[in-house]
């Protein structure tokens, strides 16, 4: 392993700072919103004077608790998240106690598994569900989503007692765009060959995005960018891999870890814990609501149909980051991403970019089997 980057220490220490901040804020009456998805605009939550943390679970130890209530054959992210909530609400200590910091969950109608889980959630925590059109390119979709966002804005106003003005919303859009631009800057550095930072190091930073306060997160990313731009770090060499697919929520770094233990290096993640969270900016020159609706509907998630733009995005990223191969990573039983694999594979084949599909859960039982596949894939693209 190359010597560690000192700015990564900032992220390691940031957790306790943020936890104290959230507790303090809550004591003073700030409402804390828990979310599960990039489709819920942070800007609206922050503009209403609330704070937010993302509750997606990446740990395996809460899954068995969820299986007391949910079917076994649904994705581990849903089970892990739900298990953590059940555990925390029943006085357990298996999971980090984030759910207890939350006044309300703002959920979203994305995949079937999540939608149905959200129906059970109100037994444990107040839950609001933001609806999403399924065909984002249809002419009615944007109008419908805009109305949904405004309704959500109204909900946030009622929750916090604050008025959500266009002015404040614009300020929050600028703030979120600033984060997105910084992440672009960070990801641009990974285009270097060899890249100055490992994918597993980036992933642990990206996972923090969903817990830290925006300014706290930006400070860390700025430091990291500066360190990578100014100090010449030891290069991280190996075959250049893109991971594309399901989110890798905090606690789950399995795929990145295996790839890099086997001698590859992940240079970009087409994922909610990768490019999907920051790639597109919100237009600051338009009515903030229209701009938000448009930008958020463009998120290339497999729950949308048709989803040609995701396929195009993957091919584009593969070229921009000059990858040697793509690891198409899906969580077990995630139908949307699993089925979309075929179209991605066809598109990559046309571009002569090798792809390996891996479906896995949060357990350790298949680490060796995945290792064999990664070994063979790296040998194949050498």
């Amino acid at each position: 392993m190359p010597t560690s980057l000192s700015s990564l220490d900032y992220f390691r220490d940031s957790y306790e700072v943020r936890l104290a901040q959230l507790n303090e804020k809550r004591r003073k009456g700030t409402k804390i919103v828990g979310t599960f998805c990039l489709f819920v605009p942070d800007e609206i939550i922050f503009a209403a004077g609330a704070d937010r943390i993302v509750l997606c679970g990446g740990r395996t130890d809460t899954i068995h608790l969820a299986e007391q209530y949910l079917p076994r054959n649904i994705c581990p992210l849903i089970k892990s998240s739900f298990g953590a909530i059940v555990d925390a609400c029943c006085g357990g200590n298996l999971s980090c106690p984030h759910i207890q910091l939350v006044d309300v969950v703002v959920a979203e109608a994305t995949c079937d598994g999540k939608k149905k889980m959200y129906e059970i959630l109100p037994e444990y925590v107040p839950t609001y569900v933001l609806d999403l059109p399924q065909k984002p390119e249809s002419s009615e979709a944007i109008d419908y989503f805009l109305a949904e966002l405004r309704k959500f804005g109204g909900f946030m106003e009622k929750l916090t007692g604050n008025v959500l003005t266009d002015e404040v919303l614009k300020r929050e859009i600028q703030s979120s765009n600033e984060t997105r631009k910084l992440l672009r800057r960070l990801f641009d550095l990974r285009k270097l060959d060899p890249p100055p930072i490992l994918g597993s190091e980036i992933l642990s930073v990206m996972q923090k995005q969903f817990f830290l306060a925006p300014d706290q997160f930006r400070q860390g990313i700025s430091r990291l960018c500066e360190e990578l731009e100014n100090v010449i770090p030891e290069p991280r060499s190996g075959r250049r891999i893109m991971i594309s697919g399901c989110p890798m929520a905090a606690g789950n770094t399995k795929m990145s870890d295996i790839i890099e233990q086997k001698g590859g290096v992940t240079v970009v993640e087409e994922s909610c814990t990768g490019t999907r969270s920051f790639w597109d900016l919100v237009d600051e020159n338009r009515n903030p609501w229209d701009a938000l609706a448009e930008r958020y509907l463009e998120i290339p998630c497999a729950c949308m149909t048709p989803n040609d733009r995701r396929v195009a995005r993957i091919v584009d990223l593969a070229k921009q980051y000059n990858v040697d191969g793509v690891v198409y990573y899906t969580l077990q039983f995630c139908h949307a991403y699993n089925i979309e694999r075929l179209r991605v594979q066809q598109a990559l084949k046309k571009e002569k970019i090798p792809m390996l599909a891996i479906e896995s859960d949060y357990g350790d039982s298949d680490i060796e089997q995945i290792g064999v596949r990664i070994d063979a894939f790296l040998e194949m693209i050498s």
Partner: protein
Amino acid sequence: MITLGIDAGAATTKTVLLIDREIAGYRVSNTAFDFLTAAKDLFSELIAASHIDENQVENIYATGYGRNTIIFANKAISEITAHAKGVYFLFPEVRGIIDVGGQDSKIIIVENGNVTDFLMNDKCAAGTGKFLEYTAKALEVSINDLGVLALSSNHPAAITSMCTVFAESEVISLRARGIAKEDIAAGLVSSIAQRIVVMTKRMGLKESIAFVGGVAKNVGMKVELEKELGIDLFVPFEPQITGALGAALVAQGIWREGPGS
């Protein structure tokens, strides 16, 4: 140059000794618990039988599930690469490989000995040697007899379960209904063959296919696969050693190598 290839498989360990590009000897045995002991024993046997000195072996490469435990090997490579090289050595005209081993099954696409794509089964025993092993036990026959028995069936029973554990119970319920042994055997062979055919077709393989791995020794499986695919398969004289052979060939330094582990 003398090289040794070791395929430390989940069920069996295979070794091949190469003197230049000639196979000087090979051994196959059960892995039992310890990959390393199995490999060491076979190495000693092979050395003794070939009348060469251990020190004359210049390069040792390991492959297979236990490849990283073979500490006396100079390098470990994946079995996908190893099979591709081994099969290419035996049948240069082959475009694809069906390898069905004890723990997994895989389809490998090869071009001049290089892997261009591959597909492995999900992380369960369906479509592997384990499936045959367990279900043969439920039929109270040996795994080899299962294949021979299957050939004598005129009315194969339908085995609907792909899951090894459920297939075992399905076999028991078929027995309880008085279905003939050979018909159940044929049903089992056809069930695993179909699984492999799906993987083969998914990879777009149509012809020039080699069938290797322990399951390729099963005559019933070969016949069933050939029927389903509508082609004749290339089966090596000893289908279990292609991985070890490939490792020994790569150890000869013939191919440009990957990162290894």
